[in-house]
């Protein structure tokens, strides 16, 4: 029974971002069909690859007839951030059976990381049951993503022009909803500002490389200001002691 309870906890924590993902999935399906890609291809991408923003970038590249190696290496670059999510989660999964880790790896998306990581952080779940909440979050996203892709493919064939509605703004709003709770201390604000400015300055770099560089600069700025701030606090503490 506790398996169901924990899975439900993970799914409930994901609801806001599932709602944000619905228009995004519809858009993916309708864009794929407006680019003339077959319905099974769009469905295969959502069910086998399961990587929202990378899927968008990929069908954009396919529509301009980019070579296969460019499509696949761009996917690699766009998804490289998931390596960093995995690195953060390793301490919670290392004792789990390999089968569970395979499923968790397959389902490691921004939204599930954002929904489940705080549950560990606030001790709502721990190493013993956190993966169950994770699976609940993953399955609900997986279901939503595939159903909306399918509906998008179908409605894209029925409602031309749907891809111009600006549905991808839902992804922007979802990501803002993930970011804002972090902005309680200076290093996080500085990480955000430096990443934002760099991403715009480097937007012209090929294959979305600007995204990766901007992200690394954001992490570096956050980390360095964190160190500096920590040091200042130590100095202050020493002054008090004196």
């Amino acid at each position, binding site marked *: 029974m506790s398996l169901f309870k924990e899975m439900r906890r993970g799914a409930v924590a994901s609801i806001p971002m599932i709602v944000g993902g619905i228009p995004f999935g519809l858009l993916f399906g309708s864009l794929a069909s407006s680019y003339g890609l077959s319905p099974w291809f769009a469905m295969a991408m959502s069910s086998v690859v399961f990587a929202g923003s990378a899927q968008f970038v990929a069908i954009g590249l396919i529509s301009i007839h980019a070579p296969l190696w460019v499509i696949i*290496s761009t*996917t690699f670059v766009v998804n490289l951030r998931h390596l960093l999510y995995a690195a*953060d989660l390793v301490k919670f999964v290392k004792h789990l059976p390999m089968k569970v880790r395979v499923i968790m*790896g397959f389902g490691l998306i921004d939204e599930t990381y954002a929904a489940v990581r705080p549950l560990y952080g606030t001790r709502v779940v721990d190493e013993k049951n956190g993966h169950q909440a994770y699976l609940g979050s993953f399955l609900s996203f997986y279901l939503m993503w595939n159903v909306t892709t399918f509906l998008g493919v179908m409605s894209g064939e029925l409602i031309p022009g749907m891809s111009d509605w600006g549905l991808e703004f839902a992804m922007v709003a979802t990501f803002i909803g993930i*970011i804002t709770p972090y902005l309680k201390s200076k290093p996080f604000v500085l990480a955000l500002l430096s990443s934002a400015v760099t991403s*715009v300055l480097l937007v012209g770099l090929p294959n979305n490389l600007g995204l990766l560089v901007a992200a690394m600069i*954001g992490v570096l700025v*956050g980390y360095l200001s964190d160190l500096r701030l920590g040091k200042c606090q130590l100095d202050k503490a020493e002054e008090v002691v004196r």
Partner: protein
Amino acid sequence: MTTVDSVIVIAGMFLVTFGIRFVLFARAHKVSMPEWLEKALRYVPVAVLTAIITPMIVMPNQQLNVALNNPWLLGAAAAFLVGIWRQQQLLTIVVGVLVFFISKYLVGL
């Protein structure tokens, strides 16, 4: 695209995506995180997600537009303010999307 090409794209995208997500989990018992890395990783989500969305917000037509006729900017600003103020994801998303579509409609008039 030919069927063979389609299969290669799906298979290739699956391999790199799953590979990235799974490689550390696969060797999890052998991975031990140094403290500095753990500290640095806390900044990853903010930095990555910001880098994805900022160009979409301030240059929706591949050109910098920070004026009030940019619905992306208005919607994002509204979502950001609500997010800072209330920190409820659903409210943040709903308000942002509403402001976006209303201003998109008004700009189009």
